[in-house]
């Protein structure tokens, strides 16, 4: 039996937090309690506590409330307390409704089923092998079965019908759970691994095809439960006794791992990934202290333990290949660091040029991170900071709570990569061309800034950039990029509405509606799709529901060109007025005066409008907005 005193203290702390409705204290107590105790009853205790604090979590911590439907063919009720707790720890409050065992087809396809009427924002689809591909085990029994591939295709087609049928009447985000590769089969381990149509091979192929299918349905992700099961150990993932007795697909010991995996997966549908990784150097990027040991003695390279640091460097390099920006924040002499990167280039996987920003000085690290945020025009909530010093991490946590600080395990460098990959900071559902080009784009930005400081006058500078702007449907931007912009843009975002792909499609398809994406390039490079506008027609007015611009493109007049384009389209659809809406957030002050600056006049709130909105109006027949003269417009 574990000692009970700290456990009782933490349970008391939790009860006090509930009594005082103190959300931050409750989350902290729950985290500590669950780290100290593996008792199922403590999870239930925390779940009960959180269930009485939904409002406090939402109000005090900004937890996202999600009406969540679970469509299933297995027993998931015992997992729900654990799911609610893991969700609360990740700042979600789930309002969960569970469907019937045998009614998932009706629930998915019938818009007026109980599920449809619940109007979920998130739907978790958890079907077992029997439901998705019940014939496969028999077809795979001899390992060479000729019908296996056809059966896999038929299963994928059937699930495709379900997902698309659901999408036709609901814009809820979808998480579709894949299959766990069965552990015990009649073929045995050797044939499972070697025969072309073993059940293992068939399920793996089915999972891959289901994942590809999910990629074709907007707002839908595939949840690879097999990856979790493999990590946790397939042999203990399912308790056969409880599976056969109660159709429970996951053993009680794995509830937390399973719940955490579910939350991490659906999070990627609701939360923007972080964009910048700031790493410390000494005992983080390499072993040892450069200032004391000298460049030849710092630990990095192919021999242990240098290879642990090399592995961390490679991991960072891979992150940067998909658009995560790397930065150095280190207390060192800059000349020493340059020398180290030169002298030890053969032992390092990264060069100084791989880092888009560097703060190598003796300033406070929080100040350095703040400077980099300003330099890159990114919010602090886009930053991850990795440092082996607990003191530095704690200082950053206190001074810049939006930044995610990761303590590098200096005494166990082989855990560096694990420490970073455990966090969901950089989780994405898709990688776009813009992501891949991002580092080059930021380098171009630095060059533009240099030009700006040398050019005479703003207009002359902007004209010298040779900006070319083209407009296209947000559906072709591609749509994934449009949704990504809606999800990630904070500073220049007039209403900050985070629409799903399905909702963007609605704007594009309604009469007089607009869903426009702005693509921009200049002589330093192609910025890709950086702006988006959504509008709908109401009478003889065109209402601009959303207008946003990636922070990298602010200050070049592109927002004006986009507004002018929306105005033109509105005139063409017969509108006489443009109506703009602005909703202030704590981040979008850069665009607070966007409409007044473009000649719009403040009007009173329309009926049924939320009081947080401000509305503005412009008479299109008198003074339509025009595009700046330094921007060349290109037909798409």
């Amino acid at each position: 039996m574990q000692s009970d005193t700290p456990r009782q203290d933490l349970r008391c702390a939790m009860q006090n937090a509930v009594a005082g409705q103190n959300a931050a204290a409750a989350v902290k107590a729950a985290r500590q309690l669950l780290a100290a105790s593996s008792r199922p009853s403590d999870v239930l205790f925390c779940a009960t506590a959180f269930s009485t604090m939904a409002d406090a979590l939402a109000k005090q911590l900004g937890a996202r409330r999600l009406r969540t439907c679970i469509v299933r063919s297995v027993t998931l009720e015992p997992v729900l307390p654990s799911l609610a707790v893991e969700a609360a720890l990740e700042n979600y409050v789930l309002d969960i409704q569970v469907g019937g065992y045998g009614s998932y087809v009706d629930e998915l396809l019938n818009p007026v089923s109980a599920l449809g009427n619940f109007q979920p924002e998130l739907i978790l689809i958890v079907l077992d092998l029997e439901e998705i591909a019940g014939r496969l085990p028999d077809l795979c029994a001899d390992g060479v079965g000729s019908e296996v591939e056809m059966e896999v295709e038929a299963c994928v087609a059937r699930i495709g019908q379900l997902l698309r049928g659901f999408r036709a009447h609901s814009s809820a985000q979808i998480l579709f759970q894949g299959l766990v590769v069965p552990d015990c089969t009649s073929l045995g381990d050797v044939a499972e691994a070697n025969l072309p149509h073993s059940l293992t091979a068939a399920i793996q192929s089915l999972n891959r095809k289901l994942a590809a299918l999910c990629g074709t349905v907007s707002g839908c992700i595939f949840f690879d439960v097999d990856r979790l099961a493999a990590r946790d150990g397939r042999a203990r993932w399912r308790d056969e006794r409880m599976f056969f007795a109660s159709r429970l697909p996951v053993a009680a010991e794995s509830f937390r791992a399973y719940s955490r995996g579910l939350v991490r997966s659906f999070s990627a549908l609701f939360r923007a990934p972080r964009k910048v990784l700031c790493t410390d150097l000494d005992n983080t990027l390499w072993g040892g202290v450069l200032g004391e040991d000298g460049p030849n003695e710092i630990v990095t390279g192919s021999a242990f333990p240098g290879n642990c640091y090399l592995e961390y460097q490679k991991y960072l390099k891979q992150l940067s290949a998909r658009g995560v920006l790397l930065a150095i924040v280190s207390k060192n002499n800059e000349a020493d660091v340059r020398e180290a990167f030169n002298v030890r280039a053969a032992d390092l996987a990264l060069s100084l040029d791989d880092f888009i920003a560097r703060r190598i000085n003796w300033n406070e690290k929080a100040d350095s991170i703040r400077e980099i945020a300003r330099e890159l025009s990114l919010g602090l909530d886009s930053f991850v900071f990795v440092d082996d010093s607990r003191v530095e991490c704690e200082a950053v946590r206190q001074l810049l709570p939006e930044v995610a600080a990761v303590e590098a395990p200096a005494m166990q460098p082989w855990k560096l990569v694990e420490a970073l990959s455990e966090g969901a900071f950089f989780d994405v559902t898709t990688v776009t061309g813009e992501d891949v080009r991002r580092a080059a784009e930021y380098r171009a930005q630095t060059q533009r800034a240099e030009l700006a400081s040398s050019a005479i006058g703003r207009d002359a500078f902007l004209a010298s950039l040779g900006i070319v702007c083209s407009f296209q449907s947000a559906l072709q931007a591609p749509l994934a990029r449009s949704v990504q912009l809606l999800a990630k843009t904070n500073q220049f975002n007039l209403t900050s509405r985070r629409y799903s792909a399905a909702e963007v499609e609605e704007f594009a398809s309604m009469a007089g509606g607009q869903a426009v994406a702005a693509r921009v390039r200049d002589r330093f490079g192609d910025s890709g799709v950086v702006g988006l506008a959504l509008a709908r027609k109401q009478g003889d007015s065109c209402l601009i529901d959303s207008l946003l611009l990636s922070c990298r493109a602010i200050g070049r007049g592109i927002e004006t060109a986009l507004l002018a384009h929306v105005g033109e389209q509105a005139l063409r659809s017969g509108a006489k007025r443009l109506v703009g809406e602005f909703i202030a957030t704590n981040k979008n002050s850069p665009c607070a005066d966007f409409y007044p600056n473009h000649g719009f006049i403040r009007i009173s709130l329309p009926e049924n409008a939320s009081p947080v909105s401000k509305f503005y109006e412009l008479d299109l027949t008198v003074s339509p907005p025009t595009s700046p003269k330094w921007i060349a417009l290109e037909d798409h």
Partner: protein
Amino acid sequence: MGFEQVPSSLRELLADVFEISPDCIAPELSSKTLENWDSFRHLQAILAIEGEYSVRFDPQRIPELTSVSLLQAELEKMGVAL
């Protein structure tokens, strides 16, 4: 109420499961007398007890163990020191 007859560890565990005060966990409390004690809550109680005392119930017995005294007796039969 007789809650003293139920060992405190079991009492606290069942209190967490059924979301009631430990003082209400009396031997005669059962799925018939407690509205909260439905089939899913029952499964949760079984899983929580298994985790707490590192035991595994015979799945054929699980549906029958629908009162505090039956659960307690089963645990004692399995040699658990409560």
